[in-house]
Every structure is written in C-alpha cells, then in structure tokens.
C-alpha cells in the first residue's frame, strides 16, 4: 500500500437509526472505495414464518421504531391483498394521515437532530456561517433543537388522537382503520396541524408552507438564499452553497418509488406515483424485476438471485466473504436509490426535477426534496383531514386467508418499503421484507456493483487527520438511513 493509500473503519456511526459501520479506502485525500456494513441482524422474516398471517400486524411494525407505521401499512396492504379486500375509504385516508405523520416526524428529526448538527462541529469553525449554525443546530443544545422536539411531540398528538400512540400503533388494519373519527376529532386534528404549521412557518421556513411547496426552479432557491425569509431553511441554503453540497454524494441517479399514500391524490391515484426515474425519464415499475443478491450479505444461498416471493433469510454467521447483514436488492440487476428525492422526482416536482437534471441525486438535492416534502405533505394532511366523513364506515371486515400471495408496497420517510407475503393453509409460508435502506445501503452484488451509498461515497474528500471524515458523515446522513429496518 502506498503512502497515500489508507484504510479507515468508521463506527459506531451515530445520528442514524441503528447500527452502521463504514470501511473506507482512500488515496490522495479522497475515498476510492467504500464498504457499508449493517452490523446487527434480527431476522423478523423468520419470526413471521409459520405464524397466523394476522400476527404480522403486531410483529412487523416492531421491526422498526422509526418506521413502525410504514411497516404496519405494508403488512396491512399485503394482508388485504391476500384477503382480496380493499380498505374503507375513511380508513384509507386515516391510514394516510397516520403514515404522513410518521414521515413528517422523521423528516423533522432527520434535519434537526441527525443531519444539521454536523455543521456545528470543529472542522467548520472558520466558515462565515459557523456561529449561526452552532447556535441553532449544535447537538442537544442548539436553539432550533428544543422547539423542533416540541413541534414533533405536538405533531405526534395526531397519533395519540386517532392511532392510540406512536410508535407501534395497531390502528392500520387490512380493512381500514381501528378508530372512527368524529366531528370533534376532525377539528382537533386540524388544530394540531395548524400548530405544527405555525411552528414550521415561524422557524424552519420563515414563511408560508405554500411558498415552499411552490418552489419551481434553482434560481428561486438562489434568490431565497440571498434575500429570502430568515429561517433554518435559508441557513441550510447558505451552508450548502458554501460547502458545495451539490457536488457531494452522487450515486447512480436511478430513483425508485412504490407510490405513496394510496388514494391520496386526484381521482383515486396515490399522492405520489410509483415508478423508476432513470436517465432523466420516467419508467413504469416492473415488480417482477426485483430480486435480492446475497453474494456479500452474510446470508446463505449465495449462488442465486432471490425474487422476494421465493427469497430466504438464513444468516451465515461463519461467512467471511459477506461483510454486512444487509442483502443487495436490485431492479433488473441494477442498484436503485429511494427516498423523498425519488418520490418528488417521480411526481415531477419542478425544482427537484431541475436539481436532478443539473447534478443528480446528491447531499443537497436529497435534503431539499425532504424539506419540500415537509411542506407539501402537511398541506395535504389538512386536505385529507377535511375529507374524513364521520358516520361513514372506517373498516370493512377482514377476509379469510387460506392460500395466496400478495405484496404490500408503501413509502417510509426514507423510501420504498415492500412486504412480500406468501400464505399456505392459513399460515405464513414466506415473508420477505425489502426496506428502503436495504436498497440504499446494500452491499456489492455478484457483479461487484456497489450499493448506492457505497457508490455515493466514492470521491468524498478526506482532510488529513480526519478519523471520521465529515464529508462522509454528510453523505451517509443525507439518505436518512434506518439500519433497524435494513436488518429487520
């Protein structure tokens, strides 16, 4: 190994959800290769096998405390698919509100608690914005941290009111929702949402959510940075421009979305459409082309691809070739990136489309897409709440399950989540889960192709003496990873 070539193992990687270690190879001050290791295995797929299918409603959400509602939603959709039922309209809307609440809470947690504290750290002491970043975002003590936690707690009152609690609500059912909402509940929900709106408009954006949602091109963003309303958003724009975050963390620019908030858009369509966005174009999603590769996962059955209905989860603790408990999902043998950026780009949000056209998926565009989604989804939640109809049904009776299979597809804050359920003789014969971070943080595959994060880390600058390169931290956290889901 030459003088300039070095290796570094980074971990424990904190301010992400769950356990993550990254091995870096570096030369001349840049990362030349990265190996991403999910260091924990839990194996929910095996816990679910052999149980009554309805138990999935209790077990599956407990895969993850940060995405528990999305896990719950995917399980309910898969069960509904096998039962051949569709949820009551009220129940579908209530489930969307519940899911949106979790996604919004996640976006807020990510921005304020996980991502921004890195800009309040030593390496940036000399930057012109440092004092303001430190004052607002220093871990545990920044002036924006406490109010955001209070706003998040207020937002989660939506869960207390209609879904019992968060995390691990059982309110989402295959036939709809377990709690009816009456006229008072509707008004109270709107009051909670208006409290959240006021807090975000005051501190995060400095202006109406509608102005954020209407952002249409990068020039408007530049103008906002120069003389837009004061707020955390504007400070982020200033930091991002100074540090050229747009040049950091580009992966494959293949964006996967399963479609978000069923029935939540116009004319019964999902709010955000499903599909693959690649080479600057939308493509329909071919679910049959999804398969998982175990070559570098510490899993048995390495020699073949695993389409999820036929997949297996057999951990191989003795394996030395595998370097992660995370499998490598591929769509038509290609890695894909998923998340808020994928949802917004698939939806054709003009600013996000323009940013992706200019510099692809990167640290900057991922964070912008997330913040735009905060504004867009909160506005939508108000509309959905008004559409709830007290007195109309909330839940249709569950069907019986003998034998059958179905997939439940939804979107967690951090991207595409699927549960592939196979039932035989009333028992779960197969349950395979592909979580968003399984896509984003997958290890290499049989072709040696790195996962999206592994690809995104190549070229990251490393300053001399850095033991945990700050550029690497920005890139890793820009995906808002959830390792708990990854290793389920």
């Amino acid at each position, binding site marked *: 190994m030459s003088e300039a070539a070095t290796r570094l193992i*980074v971990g424990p990687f904190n301010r992400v959800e769950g356990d993550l270690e990254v091995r870096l190879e570096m030369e001349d001050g840049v990362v030349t290769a990265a190996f991403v290791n999910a260091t*924990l295995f839990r194996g929910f797929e095996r816990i679910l096998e052999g149980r009554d299918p309805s138990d999935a409603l209790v077990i599956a959400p407990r895969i993850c*405390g940060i995405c528990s509602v999305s896990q719950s939603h995917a399980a309910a959709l898969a069960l509904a698919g096998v039962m051949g039922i569709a949820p009551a309209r009220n129940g579908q809307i209530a489930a969307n509100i519940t899911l949106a609440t979790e996604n919004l809470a996640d976006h807020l*947690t990510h921005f304020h608690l996980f991502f921004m504290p890195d800009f309040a750290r030593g390496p940036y002491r000399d930057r012109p914005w440092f004092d303001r970043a430190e004052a607002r975002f220093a871990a545990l003590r920044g002036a924006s941290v406490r109010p955001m*936690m209070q706003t998040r707690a207020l937002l989660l009152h939506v869960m207390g009111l209609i879904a019992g609690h968060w995390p691990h609500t059982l309110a989402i059912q295959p036939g709809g*929702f377990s*709690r009816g909402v009456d006229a008072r509940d509707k008004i109270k929900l709107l009051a909670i949402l208006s409290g959240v709106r006021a807090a975000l408009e005051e501190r995060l954006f400095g202006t109406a959510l509608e102005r954020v949602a209407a952002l249409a091109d990068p020039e408007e963003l530049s103008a906002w940075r120069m003389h837009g309303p004061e707020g955390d958003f504007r400070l982020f724009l200033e930091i991002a421009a100074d540090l050229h975050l747009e040049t950091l963390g580009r992966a494959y620019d293949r964006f996967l979305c399963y479609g978000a908030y069923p029935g939540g858009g116009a004319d019964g369509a999902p709010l955000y459409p499903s599909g693959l966005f690649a080479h600057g174009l939308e493509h329909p999603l071919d679910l049959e082309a999804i398969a998982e590769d175990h070559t570098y996962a510490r899993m048995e059955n390495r020699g073949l691809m695993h389409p999820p209905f036929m997949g297996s989860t057999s951990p191989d603790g003795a394996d030395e070739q595998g370097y992660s408990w995370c499998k490598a999902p591929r769509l038509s043998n290609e890695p894909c990136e998923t998340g808020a950026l994928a949802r917004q780009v698939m939806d054709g949000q003009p600013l996000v489309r323009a940013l992706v056209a200019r510099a692809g998926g990167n640290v900057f565009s991922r964070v912008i897409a997330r913040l735009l989604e905060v504004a867009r989804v909160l506005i939508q939640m108000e509309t959905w709440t008004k559409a709830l109809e007290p007195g109309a049904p909330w839940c249709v009776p569950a069907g019986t399950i003998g034998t059958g299979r179905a997939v439940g597809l939804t979107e967690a804050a951090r991207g595409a989540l699927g549960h592939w359920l196979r039932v035989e003789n009333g028992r779960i014969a197969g349950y395979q889960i592909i979580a968003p971070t399984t896509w984003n943080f997958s290890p290499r595959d049989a072709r040696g192709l790195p996962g999206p994060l592994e690809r995104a880390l190549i070229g990251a600058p490393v300053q001399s003496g850095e033991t945990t390169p700050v550029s690497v931290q920005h890139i890793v956290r820009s995906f808002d990873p959830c390792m708990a889901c990854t290793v389920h």
Partner: protein
Amino acid sequence: MVYNVLWLQSGGCGGCTMSMLAAEAPDLLTTLEGAGIRFLWHPSLSEATGAEARAIFDDILAGRLPLDAFCVEGALLRGPNGTGKFHILAGTGEPAVDWARRLAAIARHVVAVGTCAAYGGVTAASPNLLDACGLAYEGFYPGGALGASFRSRSGLPVVNIAGCPTHPNWVTETLMLLAAESLSEDDLDPLGRPRFYADHLVHHGCTRNEYYEYKASAREPSDLGCMMEHMGCIGTQAHADCNTRAWNGEGSCTRGGYACIHCTAPEFEEPGHLFLETPKIAGIPVGLPTDMPKAWFVALSSLAKAATPERLARNATSDHVLIPPVTRVPRRS
C-alpha cells in the same frame, strides 16, 4: 450533581428512543437538564461519532468518566453459537453483548429500556435464531446476559422499564428517581419493573369500561365495545398505567381501537394464540382477570349480558355513538 448516562442500543428497533423524544411538559431536554441528567453518549442524540464515541467508551471503562446509569435499549444477542456476532458494536469489532457486560459491571445503575432489553421481547420471538435475551431475564426467568444474581454497583438489580414501546415518562421518571436516589428495590415489582407504573392495570381508566361491565363487545376493528371478549384484549391483566397516563396527548392502545397485547410482560411476543383474537373454551374467554374466580366471572358476565342496556349493546358494534346516554330533565315542583 450531574448524573451521567450512557445509552447503547442492541437488538431492538430504536422505538423506545423515538418514543422518549416525544416527552412533553416539559420536553425531554428540559426534563433531563432540570434533573441534572446528562448523556455521556446517546446513539441518536450525541455529537460524537466514530473514534470520538469510542474514546468516550474507553474513558468510562478506565474510570475517567463516572457512569451513573448504563441504559440498554434492545435485546442482547448471544448468537450464533455464543459468539455474539449477530451484533458487533460498529467500529469496535467486539460483540455488543460483551460491551454490555463490561459496562454493566462498573455502572452505578443498570437500566433496561423496553421489553427487549428487559426480557428479550419480540427480538427473542421464536425461533430465536439470535439467542436473544434481556439484560437479567430470559423471558420470565432470571438469567439473561448478566445472570440472575446480577447487582449493579448501587446494589439494585437491573431496573426493567418494560414496554413495547416505553412511554416517554416511564423512562424519564425512572432516571429522575434513580438520580435522586429515590428508587429502592421495594419500588420494583417481582419482574424488576418500576412499580410507579407497573402497579396499575391497563384496564384502569379504560374508556371502554362501561362496555366491559356489561360485556357489550366489539366484533370488528373500529367498533366501540369492549375488546376483551373477541378482539384479544388483555388490559385486565396487563401491568401498566396506559389509560391513566396518556400517550401522545390523549392516546392509548384501547383508545386507538385495538387490543392491549400486554407488551410490558415477559414473553408477550409468544401469547400461544392469535394476538388479535380472544381464545375461548366452550365460548368462555381463556385468560380472565387473574385475581377473579372463573365461576364468578362467568356468572357475573351472564348476568351483566342479560342486563345490558340497549344503548351499550348497539353502540358496542358501531364506530360512533348511535344512542347517547339519556338526559334527564328534573320535573319542576
């Protein structure tokens, strides 16, 4: 006085941390500061990452940083084959279960946050490929990663803040009591749970109690009736104050319309029947309130059923109140 807390996560979902962040009145940071509680390191909240975090662990083990409370969230994984390799603490090459044993040995108090860390929880559900267990319990049985006879430096056994997830205030109030030296062994129940919340039943304060009284029962999700008879609810046996201490403003499982699955108990993950359906023998639910003779229960419920007012019978299977309680206007004399 500062009370130093180190928080590690192992085989769990992170949900107890996520729940704790929603503490209110006051918020988490204000609550902890007010009680002099400081995180030496917490995986979701702290600035230090990678080598800096490892340096903090080293300082603690070397005695340079006093460790008052060692909190573990998530089950401890002993597999495969006793190696602990199903969870290597990132960046250290060493199993998380070994870290937990070393840190527990020097901590003044050891706290299991959540049912996974307390008893194994869902992570230890069958077939338990992971050989997962709690810090000082394996399901109902003392043992676990630290052993049945474990005592922390203070002399207390592991404090088991069981729950899946934990209520934010169960965690903050336990830490505050420990920091104030106000939690003794007598304040823990036989399963190591703080009695301030475990001496209550979920049934207490359940908004469906009137339906319970008359066995006016829900049949489907979204029905208003009692969920004990058909829907798998075991709130009459479950130790927790969920219905007298609101979750996320005004919630609880039963208020959300779904069954209490007794998540503060060991082995709740293996009830031996479907979670959301009440097992019955000859039409009578198995698992009646633990301190009530079965014959009396059967006799009282048949009587209560016979006496069920039309209002409760009809409302029980509706998603909203069809018949309101009668308003009586006193006659003017």
